[in-house]
């Protein structure tokens, strides 16, 4: 018989309640031995029982943490994660704040709608893919294909802040939002194809990037006062998140390149009508 790696052997919420410690509004869940769905079932149950703060301990690869928490009318929850959350952390996230004390895997904030994800470490590939709103802070570095097809409309401006550097295809097909790579401790970024197919939004990259590392659809423009003001705010928030207050000037004291799309229709000219 066909095995279902996600659902086989999933226990009912009642059986799982033993993994939770409840203390006025805070639920502490021991995620050791919990399957993806079990952990998310429990998190939802805790919020329905009134928790506004969830502390997840011994997390080890459980996926989709936070994705289930969609409520109508909306509820905002704070989630602290100790350990390593699995892929798609905060996918489709509906406005919650997630703090990870550890590294994260692939797909952080996939199609996330609103809220905040703060990772005290590094994250894997496809971070912030198709992100639509909210903020993601990654203290160290990220993998390949991050911020692909990030979007934005009016006041919904998703923001991805990466402390060190990223791998290839950063901001591919980007249609909106902001990506900030601070380049902390980085001599020279090694990623290529930055912003290939970009047609909206903006990227700020601190440290050295050469023209040949960029996609053909992006242009580098001068930073103006407003850009610096924005960067200052971002760096302040970054330092606050990671208890690095006082390092702001050092982080900002390097060259930043501002990348924007050269055309709203990068591929408009490849067609005949």
């Amino acid at each position, binding site marked *: 018989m066909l095995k279902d790696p996600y659902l086989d052997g999933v226990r009912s919420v009642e059986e799982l309640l033993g993994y939770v410690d409840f203390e006025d509004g805070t639920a502490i869940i021991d995620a050791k031995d919990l399957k993806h769905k079990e952990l998310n079932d429990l998190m939802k149950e805790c919020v329905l029982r009134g928790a506004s703060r969830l502390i997840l301990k011994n997390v080890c690869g459980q996926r989709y943490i936070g994705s289930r928490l969609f409520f109508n009318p909306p509820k905002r929850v704070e989630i602290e994660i100790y350990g390593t959350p699995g892929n798609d952390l905060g*996918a489709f996230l509906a406005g919650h704040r997630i703090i990870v004390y550890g590294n994260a895997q692939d797909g952080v904030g996939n199609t996330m709608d609103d809220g905040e994800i703060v990772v005290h470490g590094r994250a894997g590939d496809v971070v912030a893919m198709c992100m*639509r709103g909210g903020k993601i802070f990654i203290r160290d570095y990220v993998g390949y294909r991050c911020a692909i097809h990030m979007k934005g409309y009016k006041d919904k401006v998703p923001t991805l802040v990466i402390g060190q550097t990223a791998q290839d295809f950063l901001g591919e097909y980007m249609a909106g939002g902001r990506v900030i790579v601070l380049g902390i401790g980085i001599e020279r970024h090694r990623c290529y194809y930055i912003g290939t197919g970009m047609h909206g939004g903006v990227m700020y990259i601190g440290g050295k990037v050469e023209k040949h590392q960029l996609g053909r659809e992006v242009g580098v423009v001068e930073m103006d006062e407003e850009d610096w003001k924005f960067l200052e705010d971002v760096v302040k928030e970054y330092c606050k998140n990671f208890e690095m207050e006082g390092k702001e000037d050092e982080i900002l004291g390097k060259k930043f390149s501002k990348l924007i799309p050269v055309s*709203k229709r990068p591929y408009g000219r490849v067609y005949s009508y």
Partner: protein
Amino acid sequence: MKSHLLPEFYVERIESRCNKCGVCVKQCPWGVYSWDEEGKEILIDYTKCVGCQRCVIYCPNKALIVKPYEGSYRPNAYWTREVISDIKKQAEQGGVILIGTGSDKPYKVYFDHILLNASQVTNPSIDPLREPMELRTFIGRKPDRLEIDPDDFEIKTEITPNLVIETPIMFAGMSYGAISYNAFLSLAMASKEFGTKFCTGEGGLPKDMREEYGEVAIVQCASGRFGVDPEYLNCACAIEIKIGQGAKPGIGGHLPGEKVSKKISETRMIPEGTDALSPAPHHDIYSIEDLAMLIYALKEATDYEKPVFVKIAAVHNVAAIASGIVRAGADAIVIDGFRGGTGATPKVMRDHVGIPIEMAIAVVDQRLREEGIRHKCSIIASGGIRCSADVVKAIALGADAVYIGTAALIAMGCTMCQKCYTGKCSWGICTQDENLAKRLNPKVASKRLVNLLRAWSLEIKEMMGAMGINAIESLRGNREHLRGIGLEDWELRILGIKGAGEGYEYRGD
């Protein structure tokens, strides 16, 4: 550069009937007609005509005839007029030729080489007008076995969510963006009225439609993730992951900037006037394991309350891919044949990539049965379903239900002019121009759609009755009711059907 292209259509105005009312000037968005104030004359530039027939239908005096331009190159069966025109067009513009709708090429149409069975003497046919006929269809995963409580006859097995539709026909994904708000709304209204579902395509579901039409909306999650927010997923009746499309297998979507109006820019969250680009792959899906990850991400985001479909184009290895999709956890698989329609695709992709839907359904159904996983997943056949007989044949070949797209547009007014990518659809369907979109009245258009569903459903019942079948369930994969005509042995083998004249073989017990 002087264009060397021949005109495609010729417009004839019957002088004696025309009273110069000017309706054609207003109706034509292509600029064929103009009013000459000085000579008080209707001027006609037929080189701009695309053959949409809008003016012909709306001319109050029936004074217009639009027909293919008769002048031609020296006829040549190899260097056809189309081939010559395409070369000239590309020599002039140097780009990929864009086109709308499904392929019009004369490949063999397998539906037209399959005949249905009917009962005579040995088992009685059923009269659908007097006896109950069940067209209700359940889309989704079915359990491995059913456990029933012997005391109260309640089902003990946990049943995963299924969609219930009153006829095995749903409306295929056509996005708000590709089609107008009015056309999109018409599909939603008709679905609700008739008891079926429509797929949103990849352009989101406008907020003002969610409360009323969410329950009939299958919301799509495609590689561009346009309009995918948590509420969108949760208000729907099902979610469809779009991997590919029959009209453009393997390439991304492309909504030309002409159609990205203010409202479209808002639902898609991209700047106005940009091309809405959907990447060719989902960048979080590079394998079956990754697909499983997205399927379960969507189930997580919707509390495991909705079936998740996966839509792929019918390509050469479709059976193996389908098997992987079922194993990845999909509740339904949508297979879009190479005739499937589109609002915009490179012509070369549309006309040369993929396989016929008839064969794709047959091989997928066969493969899933052999592997004992057919019940895990419904099969929805899509791409070029033209009439109720196509529906019946698709189901007998192994589908659970069909999606119709082009047929639905034709019901609303489309005349298959193939210019959908220009954003100037004269019938108000494939356009974001407010004045053109206004031409489509959702009340009337949804009525036409409901009529079509009703008509086809009645015909399906007639065909089933003639076969002596009274529930659509018993037709599914029932290839004994199909016979091929004019097909080679290998074609019959792939379709899993006998040739006409070959009877039922009794193989003993």
